[in-house]
């Protein structure tokens, strides 16, 4: 389902954007989470490396430098070949939390601007945990009156799809013992 979503994004019509760096008026937020029947440390061991987002079904390859230190960079290659360039802002192994931004992405790949995100694993006790994925971003179109595919709603829908697709797959894989 996520592959088709990614493909859909890639096939979105090319929109000529103005060269201005301004963005839409209202920052959007998305929070998605999933409960996993495994201890938090185990889940964090699977997703807590900034240099490896390959657990996400839409990601073919993660390459980068700087490990898990703030300032570390990674380049994501999606199924289909598009890239997303990201930078780590904050890493807290004890709190099982990382915060990062998209340094560069084509709005045809992901229709957002000024995107930042937090990925966190919470301990629920009894060998259970919860993965929380939060994003803050502006829509893809930088001026007033956006086309539908670069609107606030389109941005929220795309990010929600990325998070849901990743979290569902992660739960399935980890609980199956993968």
């Amino acid at each position: 389902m996520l592959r088709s979503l990614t493909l859909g994004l890639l096939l979105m019509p090319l929109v000529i954007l103005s060269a201005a760096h301004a963005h839409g008026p209202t920052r959007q937020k998305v929070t998605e989470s999933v409960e996993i029947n495994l201890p938090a440390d185990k889940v964090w061991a699977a997703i807590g490396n900034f240099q490896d987002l390959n657990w996400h079904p839409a990601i073919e390859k993660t390459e980068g430098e700087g490990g898990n230190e703030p300032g570390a960079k990674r380049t994501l290659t999606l199924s289909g070949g598009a890239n997303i360039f990201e930078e780590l802002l904050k890493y807290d192994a004890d709190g099982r939390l990382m915060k990062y931004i998209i340094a560069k992405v084509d709005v045809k790949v992901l229709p957002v601007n000024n995107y930042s995100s937090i990925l966190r694993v919470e301990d629920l006790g009894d060998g259970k945990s919860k993965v929380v994925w939060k994003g803050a971003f502006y829509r893809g179109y930088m001026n007033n009156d956006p086309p539908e595919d670069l609107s606030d709603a389109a941005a929220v829908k795309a990010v929600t799809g990325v998070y849901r697709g990743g979290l569902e797959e992660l739960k399935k894989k980890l609980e199956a013992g993968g």
Partner: protein
Amino acid sequence: MPIATAKSRLGGAVAAAAAAFIFAFLAMLAPLDAHAGLAEHEALVTSQLAEKVAFVDLATLKVSAELSVPGKPAGIALSPDRSRAYVTAPEAKELVVIDTENRTVLKRIATGNGPLGVAVLPGDGRIFVADWYDHRLTVIDPRSLKVIARIAVGQSPSGVAVTPDGKRVLSADRDSHQVSIIDTASLRVIKTVPVGERPFGVTIDAAGKRAYTANVKSNDVSVIDIELGETIAAVKVGRRPYAVALAQGRAFITDQYVETVSVIDLNDLKVIKKISVGAYPEGIAADKVGRFVYVACWEDNTLERIDARSLTVTGRVDVPDGPRAFGDFLR
């Protein structure tokens, strides 16, 4: 800031004694604050995603009322007598005039394509609205509530501030990396001052001498000498600084990406502390006596209170979704 001025002029011991006396004096007056107008009693928080303005009682740190304000409210300023709030609604392309006593919307004024920051002159109460898309300031008369002038500034002005004497308005022109200084008598730009990359919030000190911009891209604060019309220093802060508040001879800056408020000592312009706050801190304002600084945390949906002396968070309250509180939001 009389206390800060006294402190810098006197020797250490004398200053401490003087400060102690002043604080004791203020403490004595504290119960009268609300009536005497010494410290503000209420915060008006623009909650952009919830499309509301939340009224927060500062004594109890509780939300006492919520007012529906469609149009994704962001910026805010208050009339000189604090009886009205002017809130920008960028999605509606309007300025919303709110009766702060009765907590009602009095009027919505079409201002331009992208109203964002707003400021009010202390004397005649004229309202200056920055327009992000139209690259100008819209000036509104507080009595007729009509647009009386438009002033072209740099690209995407965001924050606006006024000097305490009402003679100058400053706009942070985000995509021109500059501050425009406007003479309020002629309504003309008299100087543009290059600052760091992508200035967003701008704040002027109580003496009207210096202005501070939070530069979103270069991750620093520019210090402007207003009379000279020049940037005299830059101070590195946390990632993606948004706005600046001033209290106790210090500047408090919201670092959006790293969940901190950076504190700068204004004497030597050094960062002395980074205070952990909620996620995505945005609007920030100090009360008049410099006792507390209030910060809206957009992602966590909180308003948090920082003790400006101990530099710790001493309280927080949940507010409606997406608080920005960009501007002068304490009354």
